[in-house]
């Protein structure tokens, strides 16, 4: 382990109380029984000005832990009348809707301390808290400019805005504390962005602020700690790690809604599911149900009402990200006030907004990761000393096995690992632009500051200057003037902003969250339903749709015909099965760690499969599940064993069968991200062998490739750990996923401006140009930085190339074996994957060759060429 990362234990109670100012001490104990464990870990360390990462289960005392020491400090100063007009502490949270939490954790304590002081006749200077997010009004901002807050509460985006504000920045010259809350949710580009903003902040401040990270349960902690503190003079800054032990035992159970889980998939048995839900809801005061998609959220609310008419009126609420801000706030308020009996959410209620006290969390279908499951269940039982209670409800056999293993990992505290993107060039471009707007830089100095961030510590000079060159408009050749955002003088080494609109463009286009629009779906046929609006699908999903694809929305099947403007037109008179899974673009990928655990579990069951009683006993004990669940799992495995073979962590079973075409179905139990990489590589190899397009399908449990005729030996042998990366780079060239990610990167890298010269673009229009944009950029250079970043994002963030290479290495070393088995049709384990439909095609045949081929076919139909 790095020498600058130090795990610490809880301090002695007296030690912590000893640092508290008498006023603060009195206030604290008038409100709380005692210091919490988290506070024993954190408060004194912060007081001692040590960088610290505090990881504790979701439970409401982390924020106060962070603030207590700071409040203590500020109160002491204010009583001594030494409080200056500057920002002492910057608090950062990814949640816009902070107001209520800040009120509870900061403003009210301050008010109460003030009252106490008044009672005691103690005079205090005013301690001010300022909140700035995307929702802060201009007048509020103006007020803050006049009366500088001592504690500045903000979001990553708003932070980077004030870093370019010439006057406001003066208030940040002596920041003493920086708090990064919900840091576990920053393992993505937003976190990368924040880490650069933090380094910019520290660069502006004349003193090095103490860094405090607040995290829910996450792994690996060291990685997150490094991300928090970054580097100084090439060396990792010191960071204490407080891993507050999960004192709260989580009470979890798993419910299979029907005797035979296969029946649960039958819509007739929906009744049973909703009866179970109803029972659970009635047994508790407030229940929170998590689904995995927005569509499912709507469906659950709708069906609860359907099955129990009038029972839930006014007592139930849906909460997901495509709802309006007002509606979401309304639900949150109602929850806080205990007015709702049940709330249903996709992922939006996972993060820390206070939602009052929840008695039970229901997880409908697998949450796909241990950390996420813990986070969700942790939303229950906010009372300091009650245990969170959660129930998994599974709806199919794969779900059952997955949740069983997940539950085991949760109970045994095996947290899956996050990955923080490194060297993201699009975020870098945006931040460099921001830096150039603040002042004129020396290029080497700028690079030095950038490299202090953990995410850019290994940024190459080449990449840095490539991005500078891009921002300076070099790619536009003679038209550089039009496209340049910065100027770079290679002789003097100076970088500055360009154009009068620079600041405006920056402010109106910053951010890392790609804008995803929603497209209304309207019916064209049958005639009597023409014009009917049936729901919305998101942009990502729409991009993948081809004419004729059949998908499910709100429980009904539709066939996609075309889009016009911001609407998608479909036919409702469909009898075909769905060809694409509707929730594909929203689907959370199963974490690799859990995938491996499932594979291991499979191996253990495989060993005992011949002895039913022993096997059942093993499953019950190993997974902590009941008889019914164990029976269902056993049956599922037995079927697979009879049909072909049970794949496990030592044997990667590949089934070959023929339906309309030849299929190779790989039972790679590694999670969708790795399967995506492997699938594309093998599909590409297969496509190249016969120069024909290959269909591929992927899910968490495996992948398949399909085509006219597949030579499995040749295909499998053509991919290895050395060539995987280069094969994938080629394979993704013409894919939808690259196009889409390119657009996101182009947006982040300010090549596509959401808002320009007062005109905001609709998402639909942005889409239309995707194809053109990508090909235009490729003509500039195959290694164009934004394009390079799009590829990196696809290979490392969307897929998981690192672990895919690892898998291939295991196979090469003999630790895992590939076993090809011929089957008459798809096996039980492969059914879900097969039925799901294709995820994509590997297009190897280029447009012109396709044209020639179609032409000769057409000639046969219409006869000789005539004119």
């Amino acid at each position, binding site marked *: 382990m790095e020498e600058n990362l130090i795990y610490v234990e809880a301090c002695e109670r007296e030690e912590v109380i000893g640092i508290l100012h008498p006023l603060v001490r009195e206030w604290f104990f008038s409100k709380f029984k005692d210091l919490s464990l988290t506070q024993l870990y954190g408060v004194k360390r912060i007081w001692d000005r040590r960088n610290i990462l505090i990881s504790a289960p979701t439970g409401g005392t982390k924020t106060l832990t962070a603030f207590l020491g700071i409040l203590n400090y500020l109160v002491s100063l204010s009583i001594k009348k030494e409080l200056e007009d500057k920002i002492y502490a910057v608090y950062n949270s990814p949640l816009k809707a902070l107001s209520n939490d800040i009120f509870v954790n900061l403003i009210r304590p301050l008010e109460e301390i003030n009252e106490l002081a008044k009672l005691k006749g103690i005079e205090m200077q005013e301690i001010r808290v300022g909140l700035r997010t995307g929702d802060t009004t201009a007048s509020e901002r103006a007020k803050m400019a006049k009366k500088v807050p001592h504690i500045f509460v903000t979001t990553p985006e708003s932070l980077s805005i004030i870093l370019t504000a010439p006057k406001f920045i003066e208030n940040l010259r002596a920041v003493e504390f920086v708090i990064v809350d919900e840091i576990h949710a920053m393992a993505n580009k937003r976190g990368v962005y924040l880490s650069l903003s933090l380094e910019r902040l520290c660069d502006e401040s004349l003193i090095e602020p103490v860094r405090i990270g607040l995290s829910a349960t996450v792994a690996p902690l060291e990685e997150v700690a490094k991300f928090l503190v970054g580097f100084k003079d090439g060396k990792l800054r010191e960071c204490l790690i407080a891993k507050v032990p999960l004192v709260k035992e989580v009470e979890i159970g798993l419910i299979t809604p029907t005797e035979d889980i296969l029946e649960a998939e039958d819509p007739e048995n929906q009744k049973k599911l909703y009866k179970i839900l109803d029972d659970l809801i009635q047994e508790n005061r407030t229940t929170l149900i998590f689904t995995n998609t927005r569509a499912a959220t709507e469906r659950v609310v709708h069906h609860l009402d359907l099955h129990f008419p009038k029972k839930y009126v006014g007592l139930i609420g849906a909460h997901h990200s495509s709802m309006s801000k007002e509606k979401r706030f309304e639900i949150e308020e109602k929850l806080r006030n205990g007015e709702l009996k049940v709330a249903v959410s996709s992922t939006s209620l996972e993060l820390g907004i206070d939602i009052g006290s929840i008695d039970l969390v229901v997880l409908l279908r697998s949450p796909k990761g241990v950390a996420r499951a813990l986070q969700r269940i942790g939303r229950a039982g906010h009372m300091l000393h009650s245990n969170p209670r959660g129930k998994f409800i599974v709806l199919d056999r794969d779900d059952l096995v997955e949740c069983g293993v997940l539950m085991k990992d949760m109970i045994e505290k095996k947290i899956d690992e996050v990955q923080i993107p490194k060297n993201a060039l699009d975020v870098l471009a945006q931040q460099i632009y921001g830096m150039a707007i603040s002042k004129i830089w020396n290029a080497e100095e700028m690079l030095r500051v950038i490299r202090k961030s953990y995410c850019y510590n290994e940024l190459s000079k080449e990449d840095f200057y490539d991005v500078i060159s891009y921002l300076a408009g070099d*790619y*536009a*050749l003679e*038209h550089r003037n*039009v*496209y340049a955002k910065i100027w770079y003088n290679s002789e003097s080494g100076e970088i500055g902003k360009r154009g009068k609109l620079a600041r405006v463009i920056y402010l109106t286009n910053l951010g890392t969250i790609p804008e995803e629009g929603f497209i209304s779906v309207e019916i064209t046929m049958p005639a009597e339903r023409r014009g009917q609006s049936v729901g919305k699908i998101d942009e990502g999903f729409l991009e993948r749709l*081809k*004419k*004729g694809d059949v998908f499910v929305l709100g429980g009904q099947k539709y066939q996609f015909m*075309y889009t*016009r403007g911001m609407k998608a037109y479909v036919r409702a008179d469909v009898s075909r099965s769905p060809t694409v899974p509707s929730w594909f673009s929203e689907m959370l990928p199963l974490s690799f760690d859990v995938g491996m655990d499932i594979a291991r579990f499979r191996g253990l069951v495989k060993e005992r499969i011949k002895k039913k009683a022993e096997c059942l006993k093993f499953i019950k004990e190993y997974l902590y599940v009941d008889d019914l669940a164990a029976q269902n799992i056993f049956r599922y495995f037995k079927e697979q064993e009879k049909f072909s073979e049970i794949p496990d962590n030592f044997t990667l079973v590949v089934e070959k069968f023929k339906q309309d075409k030849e299929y190779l179905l790989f039972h790679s139990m590694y999670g969708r991200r790795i399967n995506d990489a492997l699938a594309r590589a093998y599909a590409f190899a297969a496509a190249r062998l016969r120069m024909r*397009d290959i*269909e591929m399908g992927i899910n968490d449990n495996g992948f398949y490739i399909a085509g006219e005729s597949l030579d499995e030996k040749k295909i499998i042998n053509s991919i290895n750990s050395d060539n995987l990366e280069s094969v994938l780079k080629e394979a993704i060239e013409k894919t939808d996923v690259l196009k889409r990610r390119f657009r996101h990167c*182009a947006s982040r890298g*300010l*090549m*596509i*401006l*959401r*808002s*320009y*010269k007062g*005109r905001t*673009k609709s998402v639909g*229009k942005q889409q239309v*140009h995707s*194809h*053109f*944009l990508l090909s*235009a*950029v490729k*003509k*500039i250079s195959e290694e164009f930085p934004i394009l390079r970043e799009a590829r990196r994002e696809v290979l490392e963030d969307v897929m998981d190339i690192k672990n895919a290479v690892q898998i291939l290495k295991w196979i090469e070393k003999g630790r895992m074996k590939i076993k090809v088995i011929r089957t008459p049709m798809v096996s039980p384990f492969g059914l879900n994957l097969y039925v799901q439909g294709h995820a994509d*095609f590997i*297009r190897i045949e280029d*447009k*012109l060759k*396709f*044209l*020639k*081929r*179609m*032409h000769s*076919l*057409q000639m046969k*139909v*219409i006869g000789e*060429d*005539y*004119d």
Partner: protein
Amino acid sequence: MIKFIGKCLLIESKKKILVIGDLHFGYGESLRKMGIMIPDRLFENLTLELNFILDSFEIDEVVILGDLKHEFGKILNSEWREINEFIDILLKRKKDVVIIKGNHDKITGIITEKRGILIKDFYIYEDIAFIHGDKDFKEIYKRDIKTWLMGHAHPAVKISDGNKEEKFKCFLDGKYKGRRVIILPSFFDINEGTDPREFDLGLAWKFELNKFKVKVVGEGIEVLNFGKLKEITYF
């Protein structure tokens, strides 16, 4: 004798006339206005293609059927420069140039300064009428006119083998009231165009496009006959 050369038509009679469809200068500008900061090389590509054709065939006159400009409204000086340069290329090679007025007026002022340029609502040569396609004119119904050539529609066709689908630029070649009608694809490569089976092409007549022959633009100057539109399977 009308020949199909890539995206253009070549009329080989006493005069050799090259007919070009819509051009869309100013696309780069319209992208930039939308905040898409990707420079297009459309002008350079166009010049290359055009020079290639001018080098490969004997041509006396060039008729441009379509919109020169991409958008209405203001346009940068640089875009005007491109249009002028383009016409200069033709004039330098001693070709006569006829521009059929599309749905825009602004070019009239600047272009009329140049010699050798004719701007017309419609143009008739022998038995052929050259029009834009958005407006009808009674003059083209004269008895001796046997062929109409037009742009405006950007015809394209979607071809699928049941699995994947691609869109290609194409000519639509058919009959209307006893006359031959040929609709040219757009010359520029911004996008393929519109498949008439999906959307209305916006032409001033109700043609029976299903019966029109589809001639797909292939590689280079290659044009492939796909038969009648109704014979191409639409998935």
